[in-house]
């Protein structure tokens, strides 16, 4: 099933509020081989001026994951997860994410392109905190491999 070109420009519903947990930050930090005490040690994070443990620079992918799920669940999109390979990724950060943040994300499909038998979908997710302040923008290009 080809990827629906009409996805381009589509804006998805704001994701439900996600409470960033201290243990989730520690779990993610271990998974990306972090050795920074700011990611694990509350006292070290507070001494550095943060409210709680600090997430690694790519943690916003957890929020983006929820937005990409909206795209995968979209019956109209025609995307099968096992055919998806990540092409490009960018994080533009206003500030690091810390434990206790309540975050939401709004995804916009920036572009849909065909290249050979594959499709490339670029999605941008804008992440805000509970006060409506910008935390990060993540831009992701997925390559959806054709069946042939």
């Amino acid at each position, binding site marked *: 099933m080809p990827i629906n070109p009409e996805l381009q420009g589509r804006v998805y519903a704001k994701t439900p509020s996600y409470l960033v947990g201290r243990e*989730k930050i520690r*779990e*993610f930090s*271990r*998974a*990306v*081989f*972090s*050795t*920074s005490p*700011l990611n694990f040690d509350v006292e070290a994070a507070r001494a*550095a001026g943060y409210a709680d443990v*600090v*997430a*690694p*620079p*790519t943690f916003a*992918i*957890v929020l983006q*994951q*929820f937005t990409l799920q909206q795209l995968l669940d979209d019956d109209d999109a025609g995307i099968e*997860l*096992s*055919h*998806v*390979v*990540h*092409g*490009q*990724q*960018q*994080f*533009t*950060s206003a*500030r*690091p994410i810390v434990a206790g943040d309540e975050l939401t994300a709004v995804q916009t499909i920036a572009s849909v392109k065909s290249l050979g038998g594959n499709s490339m979908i670029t999605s941008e997710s804008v992440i805000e905190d509970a006060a409506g302040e910008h935390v990060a923008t993540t*831009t992701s290009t997925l390559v959806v*491999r054709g069946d042939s």
Partner: protein
Amino acid sequence: MTLTKQALRALSVGDVVAQREFAFTRDSLVRYAGASGDFNTIHYRDDIALSVGLDGVLAHGMLTMGAAVQPVVDWLGDPALIDDYQVRFTRPVYVPADGEAVVSVIAKIGQVDAEAGAARIDLVVTAAETTVLGKAQVRVHAA
């Protein structure tokens, strides 16, 4: 220690500021899947990876991207100094069922703007002697 404006002024293009090696195993992939919420089966099912035309199970690009920036975080001292981080996933990192894939990261200064107190750090990320991330750039500012 965080990167100061003074320290930034002393940097030149090509300076290696950090480097590290990571050993990815299937255990790393399962751990990353759980931590990130990315349960794409191509990261833990050999049969599915092969059926969609891959050579086997591959590491999440985001695991490689997430690990590759860690030496830079340690060097900077404060993740708040990172303004932007981008990569292209140019080649997959295949992870064998019974061994490890070693990913090597070298972080070099790509550009310095002493006036603005900003710099671009280019990451050279390789596995099996092949570059796996393209245009891997971290834009930072001094404290």
